C-alpha cells in the first residue's frame, strides 16, 4: 500500500493520523472557516467534507472513510435547536447514538470518532476538536486492523 493510503510516513518513522471530518454547511463549516480566518493554530491532519446538514451524514460515510484509509473521523454540526433545517441534527443524533454503540459491539473503538456540535461562532472549539482528535488518534496509532480487512486474496 502506498503512503497515501496508510498515512504512515515510512521514511520518517512517525505516524501522522489521517482524519476525515464530515461537517454541516451552516454551523461547523462556518465555525471551521472562522478558526481559519482567526488564524488559530490547528493540526493539519483533518480533511473536511461539507454536507448540508448532519442529517445528511449517513453513518456509512464514516465506515467508508475507514475503508479508504482514515485513522479517525470527526462528525460535527449545529447545536440542538440551531439546525438550519430545524431538526436534522435531532434525527442524526439518534442514528449516531445507535451507530456508536453498534460499532463498539463490533469491536471498533468509538474513540476513533469524535462527535461534536460546533456553531458558526465557535472557531476556538473547532480548533480544540481538531487538535484533541488528532492527538488522541496519534496515541491510538494507525487503524491498521480496519485497513487490513481486504488485502490480497491468497
Amino acid at each position, binding site marked *: 500500500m502506498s503512503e497515501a493510503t496508510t498515512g504512515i510516513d515510512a521514511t520518517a518513522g512517525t505516524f501522522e493520523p489521517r482524519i476525515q471530518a464530515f461537517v454541516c454547511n451552516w454551523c461547523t463549516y462556518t465555525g471551521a472557516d472562522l478558526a481559519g480566518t482567526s488564524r488559530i493554530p490547528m493540526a493539519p491532519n483533518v480533511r473536511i467534507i461539507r454536507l448540508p446538514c448532519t442529517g445528511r451524514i449517513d*453513518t*456509512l460515510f464514516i*465506515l*467508508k472513510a475507514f*475503508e479508504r484509509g482514515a485513522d479517525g473521523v470527526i462528525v460535527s454540526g449545529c447545536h*440542538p*435547536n440551531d439546525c438550519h433545517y430545524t*431538526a436534522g441534527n*435531532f*434525527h442524526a*443524533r*439518534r*442514528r*449516531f*447514538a*445507535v*451507530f*456508536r*454503540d*453498534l*460499532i*463498539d*459491539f*463490533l*469491536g*471498533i*473503538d*468509538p474513540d476513533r470518532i*469524535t*462527535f*461534536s*456540535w460546533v456553531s458558526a461562532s465557535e472557531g476556538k*472549539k473547532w480548533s480544540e*476538536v481538531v487538535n484533541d482528535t488528532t492527538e488522541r488518534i496519534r496515541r491510538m496509532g494507525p487503524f491498521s*486492523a*480496519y485497513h487490513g*480487512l*481486504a488485502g490480497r*486474496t491468497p
Partner: protein
Amino acid sequence: MRDLQDLAAKLLTEKTVGLVIGWEAGPRGARPSFVTDPKDAGKLISDNRCVHNLAAYLSPRRPHLRGFGRIAVAVKGCDVRAVAGLLRETQLRREDVVLIGIRCGGVHDTPTGVGPLTADNLADRCVGCEVRDPARCDHVLGELPPSLPSRGGRRAARIAELEALDHAARFAFWREELSRCVRCNACRQVCPLCVCERCLADKTDPPWIESSPHPRANLAWHATRALHLAGRCVDCGECERACPAGIPLNLIGRKVAAVVERRFGYRTTDDPQVPAPIGAWKPEDGQEFIR
C-alpha cells in the same frame, strides 16, 4: 389445526381472499404453504415447527405474489409485529390482508424440529415471550398452551461475554465470523422488514457497499443492515436461520434492539400507531457522546 383449515377454505370459497399463506408439512419439516384452492386447505398445519415469519411474503418486494388479490396470512403473536412494521411504514394496507392469528406455545429453533419443546430446542426468541396470544388479528385460532419451557436468555449471555472482551478481541471475533459471509443476501431477502425497492447494497454507482465478500465489505454490509433495522427488527430470527454460513446475526440484531430500548425507551410492538424510534426524536435524547 382443523379450525385453520376450515377458516382458510371458507375465506377462499367466499372469495374474501385469493390466497392463504400458512404452513404445511414439507419434505423437510414445516414450510410456508400457499393455498388458492379451498380443496387444498387441508394441508395447512399449525404446530411447534411453524418457525417461519410469513409476514415476509407481504413485503412489497415480492412481485410474484401480487395478482392474487387480498391475501390471508397465518401469524403468530411475534409475527404480528412484522406486519405492524409494514403497516407503520405504509408498505402494506391493512385492508389488503386478512390476519389469522395463531395462539402459540413456542416453536422449535428449526422447522425440522421433532417432538415436544424443551428448554434445549426452544427457539431463542420464544424465551420470555409476551405475545403468545396474538393481537390485532381478524381471526384468532387455537387454544393458548399453558406455558413455555423456561430457560435463561442464551443470546443475552453471549452478548455479555462479547462485551467483556476488549475492542481488539471483539473485532477479531466479528472479523472471523463475517469472513464467512458470501454475500448471498439471504439475510436481507428473508427479512420481513427489508422492504427497499433497491437495496443500498445493490447500488453500483457509486458502490456504497462493495459487493465483494471480503471482511471489509462484509462489515460495512452487516453494520449497515443492522442500522437500517434499528427499531424495526422484530427478532423473528429468519436472517440467522437463512444464513448458509452460520453467522450469529441475531446477536447483532439483539444488541441494537437493546441499545434502542435503553436510549429511546422503544420496544418492538404490534401497534402500528407507535412511531418508529429512528425517524422520530426527542429534544432530551441523550448526547453524552457528543462534545
